[in-house]
């Protein structure tokens, strides 16, 4: 059943915990505050989805969790109880902009192998790369260059690149956004399987409500300008999940409905504040 979540707890068993998090982008002529007083935590092994309107700060939040962006002074962001100062080990990331994230001068195979180089033997590396490419359905395109692939294929290369590292934590920014329904469903299941087997924590940004509900233990809705955590919804569906069976559960439909309502409420609230204050 879907349950309104409790206040974020700080606990060393958490993979991530944030409090009083805020972020400002400084450009030549203005300062844009994107996140404000964001507080939440994510338990180890949890599958947490983040939803929110376009431009609300989801990518920004993910980059902070990845240790790629330093939040404003006074913010606290912890990974396993430690304040984050740089990219923590064992954290993999799939970027939203797949085209920019691939190395154009490397073949698909060598893009996937990137993080393994110098860390594993050549034979193990080849084996793991092959497995990862098979997982995303690109086993036969290993020797192509990124520009020879379609958009969805490029995105899958990126997914393979992070899975091949067997990360304990996966940060994924709209990883399945460019994929068709079938490929998407297949990769969702693979991801759930990988997470279950390895016990990995996943923080997952998506725009697809069905996807968020199907995959997650919990959904955060970011909204507002600057954005904060508007709602937090626990998704209590049994695991392992199944594309047909799970989606036919009444609990699934109820959860889906609640997430939808939460999103609508948040966007409406946002639209109001926005027209009211004119701030941005």
């Amino acid at each position, binding site marked *: 059943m879907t349950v309104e979540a409790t206040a974020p707890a700080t606990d060393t068993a958490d993979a991530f915990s944030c409090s009083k998090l805020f972020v400002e982008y400084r450009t030549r002529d203005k300062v844009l505050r994107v996140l404000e007083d964001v507080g939440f935590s994510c338990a180890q092994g949890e599958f947490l989805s983040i939803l929110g309107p376009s431009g609300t700060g989801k990518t920004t939040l993910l980059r902070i969790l990845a240790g790629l962006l330093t939040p404003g002074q006074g913010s606290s962001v912890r990974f396993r109880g430690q304040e984050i100062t740089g990219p923590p080990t064992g954290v993999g*990331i799939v970027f939203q902009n797949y085209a920019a994230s691939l190395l154009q001068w490397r073949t698909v195979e060598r893009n996937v192998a990137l993080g393994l180089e110098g860390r594993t033997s050549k034979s193990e590396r080849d084996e793991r790369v092959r497995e990862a490419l098979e997982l995303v359905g690109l086993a036969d395109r290993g020797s192509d260059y990124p520009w020879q692939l379609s958009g969805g294929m490029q995105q899958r290369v990126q997914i393979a690149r992070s899975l091949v590292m067997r990360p304990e934590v996966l940060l994924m920014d709209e990883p399945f956004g460019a994929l068709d329904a079938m490929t998407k469903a297949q990769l969702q299941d693979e991801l759930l399987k990988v997470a279950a087997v390895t016990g990995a924590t996943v923080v997952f940004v998506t725009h697809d409500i069905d996807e968020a509900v199907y995959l997650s233990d919990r959904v955060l809705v970011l909204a507002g300008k600057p954005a904060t955590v508007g709602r937090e919804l626990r998704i209590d569906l049994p695991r392992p999940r199944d594309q047909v069976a799970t989606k036919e559960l009444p609990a699934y439909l109820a959860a889906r409905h609640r997430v939808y309502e939460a999103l609508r409420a948040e966007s409406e609230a946002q639209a109001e504040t926005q027209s009211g204050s004119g701030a941005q």
Partner: protein
Amino acid sequence: MRRLLGFAVPVIAILLWQLVKSTGLLPYDNIPAPSDIWSSTVDLASSGELLANTGHTLAACLGGWALGCVLGLLLGLLLGLVRPAWTYGMASVEVLRALPAISFVPIVVILLAQTVEMEIVIAAWVAIWPVAISTIDGVRGVNPVHQDLARSLGLSPVAKVVKFALPTALPKIVVSLRLSLSAALVLAIVAEIVGDPDGIGYALVQEQQSLRPAAMFSYILLTGVLGIVLNFILVWALRFVPGARQAAMGADDAA
């Protein structure tokens, strides 16, 4: 056929030149006709002089170029990637790279005598800067998503340079390798004209003073041919450097 198109322009130019020369429109003794240049080239080639002088100049040019490129690359990486190095060194580089190499010939002669080493130093000096500047510019152009990726994969600084910075900079570096090559060749010849009694530069002055302008032109024009050949080899060799393939191909085609 399409490849031959490139020869159309030079062939027409040579024919025109021959024409103005044989009709007497160009009355200067120091600009010989292409036919004379050709026959003197054949003479120089058969006497072995051409080969010997070319070999000397080539050695100096390639030695200086290789040295300059390596130094330029290292310097470029240092300044492009290490912020304090840039802050506390870039202005010095800006000053150094504008110093006219030929005004140093007498000084280098004092230190190294009139030897091929002197030429190498002069050629290296001019080869360093294009490579260094392109490397600085290139390694800074690593796209933001790639910077994030490199950091999140926890790559070592060396791996970041080898896997991200260098490949990103490569197209620009490839262009500057070619620029440096021509600069090194020209400066090696200038050093021979001014200082070292050997090689193409020396020979062309000697030929001029011996009242053989055709032979002098043989050497000058030969330099261009030498350049084309060197450039062709460079572009060809770059195809074997992983990642340079695309960059080299984008840059070649002329050869």
